[in-house]
């Protein structure tokens, strides 16, 4: 499935080439309805996800560019959606039911209780990742430290590099991926970390000469991991255990968001060990800290996880239900969790999306009944709709 979402690289070359035509273009095409006012019936000016309610249902809100850059630079939006954002020159998200439901839970949560795990599930292309993005935006605006894994299966399926872990026997390190995640973490939380002045609780000894003393800022720990890629995995583990302790102590709030969480419980990975055998996910050093932080034994945080069919491989993709995708071990790890179903568009959402496409001049052909045709062809599935209107 992931492979079907093929991307068009090198688009910029075309656009550069065409820059010169743009000025002298005379068109004979039908011009879409003029957009004078920025607020149409399908848009909302409420850009703070904290204030979203059923009033804004099926309406688009815009994520400001700098916030989008802060949260989603290291991933978190699907590739196709990123492309769409670039084309439409604005980062718009639709306010949808599952996100509203999650926001309601998070706002009403008692943070002194152990973390509640929310599990997003749904068919392919229904918007699990974007629901998560919406909630992440809320978290970033409300001083949550974001522990965000944009797409966990990447570590199991196509790691940059795999090497044997130094300390632990039989474990596999993914130094580059761990470092990339640390960069992502720093991007998302850099400012907040500086403001909160979080300190490490114990000393971490990396090697004979290198160590991070107790009481040093958390940011220093992160930077160490980025600078010394060899220790990135260990740093990640240290960082996450620190975050757990700090948030339990009440010094910060943590929002954990892991997309494709079921990849941690997949029977095998595509990484080979020394004896040319496939490694199970629990033998990757990155798995442990993220399983640890999704456990219920800490407070002052929320966990938003998504289970996805396409995080699995051939033969394990029969159903999109959480118990099936997580398997026995995963279910026991998460139970009790709150499943949140992400469904296809409702009629209202669909209509709103079509309006948005029309407004952005993305649909240029509007013969009679085209909306019904698209509705029928896509079954109101967001991703299918996106694919269908590509060439319209």
């Amino acid at each position, binding site marked *: 499935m992931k492979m079907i979402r093929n991307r068009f690289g090198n688009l910029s070359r075309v656009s550069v080439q065409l820059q010169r035509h743009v000025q002298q273009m005379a068109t004979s095409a039908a011009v879409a309805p003029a957009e004078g006012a920025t607020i149409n019936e399908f848009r909302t000016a409420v850009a703070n996800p904290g204030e979203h309610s059923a009033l804004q249902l099926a309406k688009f809100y815009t994520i400001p560019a700098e916030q989008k850059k802060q949260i989603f630079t290291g991933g978190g939006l699907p590739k196709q959606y990123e492309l769409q954002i670039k084309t439409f020159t604005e980062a718009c998200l639709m306010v949808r039911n599952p996100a509203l439901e999650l926001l309601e839970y998070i706002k009403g949560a008692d943070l002194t*209780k152990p973390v509640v795990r929310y599990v997003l599930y749904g068919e392919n292309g229904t918007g699990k990742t974007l629901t998560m993005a919406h909630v992440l935006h809320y978290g970033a605006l409300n001083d949550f430290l974001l522990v965000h894994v944009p797409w966990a299966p990447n570590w199991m399926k196509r790691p940059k590099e795999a090497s044997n872990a130094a300390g632990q026997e039989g474990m596999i390190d993914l130094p580059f991926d761990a470092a990339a995640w640390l960069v992502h973490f720093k991007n998302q939380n850099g400012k907040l970390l500086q403001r909160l002045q979080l300190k490490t609780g114990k000393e971490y000894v990396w090697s004979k000469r290198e160590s991070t003393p107790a009481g040093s800022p958390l940011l220093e720990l992160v930077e160490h991991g980025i600078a010394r890629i060899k220790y990135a995995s260990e740093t990640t583990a240290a960082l996450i255990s620190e975050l757990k302790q700090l948030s339990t102590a009440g010094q910060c709030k943590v929002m954990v968001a892991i997309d494709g969480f079921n990849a941690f419980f997949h029977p095998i990975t595509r990484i080979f060990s020394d004896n040319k055998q496939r490694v199970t996910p629990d033998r990757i050093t990155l798995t442990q800290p993220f399983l640890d932080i999704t456990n*219920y034994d800490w407070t002052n945080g929320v966990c938003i996880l998504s289970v996805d069919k396409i995080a699995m491989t051939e033969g394990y993709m029969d159903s999109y239900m959480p118990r099936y995708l997580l398997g026995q071990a995963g279910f*026991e790890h998460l*139970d*009790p969790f*709150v499943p949140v*179903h992400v469904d296809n568009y409702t009629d209202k959402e669909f209509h709103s999306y079509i309006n948005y496409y029309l407004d952005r001049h993305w649909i240029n052909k509007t013969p009679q009944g085209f909306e019904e045709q698209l509705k029928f062809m896509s079954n109101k599935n967001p991703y299918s709709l996106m694919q269908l209107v590509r060439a319209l």
Partner: protein
Amino acid sequence: MSTGLTRVWERLPLKKQAAQSGIRVFSQQQPEIEDEEEFRVLNLRTVKQQFQRRREVRRDPVTPPRTNRMAVDQDWTAAWPAPRSFHPASVPLPLRQGFTERGAAAPSKFANAELMKIPNFLHLTPPAIRQQCEAIKKFCSPWPKGLETEAKWQRHFPVEVITTDYLQSLPTIRNLEARRVTISLKLSDLKFDAHARDKFLRLVGDRYNKDTDTVTFVTDRCPLRKQNYDYAMYLLTACYHESFVTEPWEASKSEADMEVYLFERNQSKIAAEGILNWSAKEGDNKISPPPAYAQCVEQLINEGENEYNLAKYKEEVKKMLNV
């Protein structure tokens, strides 16, 4: 050459004339020959002139069917005492059977192969059965008291034993199949605890039918029926008593060996208790997870996932965690 021809010509004066006049002459001459003598037939073999007439087979006149003479109130069991293929003259019924073209009546019973092909039960009329029952009554004992209804006799005799007797025209009267004994009983008639029931089912294996809740033993390994019956009863008894024995190694039954998911045995319970008793101190009363939640987790896993079970699970989790 020409002199030769003239000679021939002269020899046949008559023919010459005829050819010249163009009139056929044969018709004039033939009657003269007939008159002279009769045509003689060549008789190579001596054939007897007169035919021998075929001898007529003397048949008795067809007697009218017996049914004409039957009294209206005759004893039918005497007329048709035993199984027999259909005979039209003996059956006083206007039967018709067989295919015809549309509109025509079906062939009557006389000389009707269709009626003879099919089996008949004319010897098993209700009066005949009644008569025979009366006749064998003197050999029967009275029906036991207290077993009037099916429910009652099933309660008193839960085990059903099935054997088969064979009659055959072989030199031997034994039949190998006659030794086979089948006993079956409802599992609900046996008293078990949870462990014993589980173990009994494992011992019995595919002899238990889940749909009908019956256990069936079929024994045929001994040469005599009596021995097989004893063996079947022994098996039942042994399995029953063995199921109550708990071996020391049974304590090591792991989760993978379980037939059903039990909330009590699982990680889910520990996790739920851990969450509910998060801020509790040592010595406080432990809050245990609500039974409704336990039930819906069991349902989710035992029945398999579907939207309904998952929605129910969600509701219960939300209730338990106060979200």
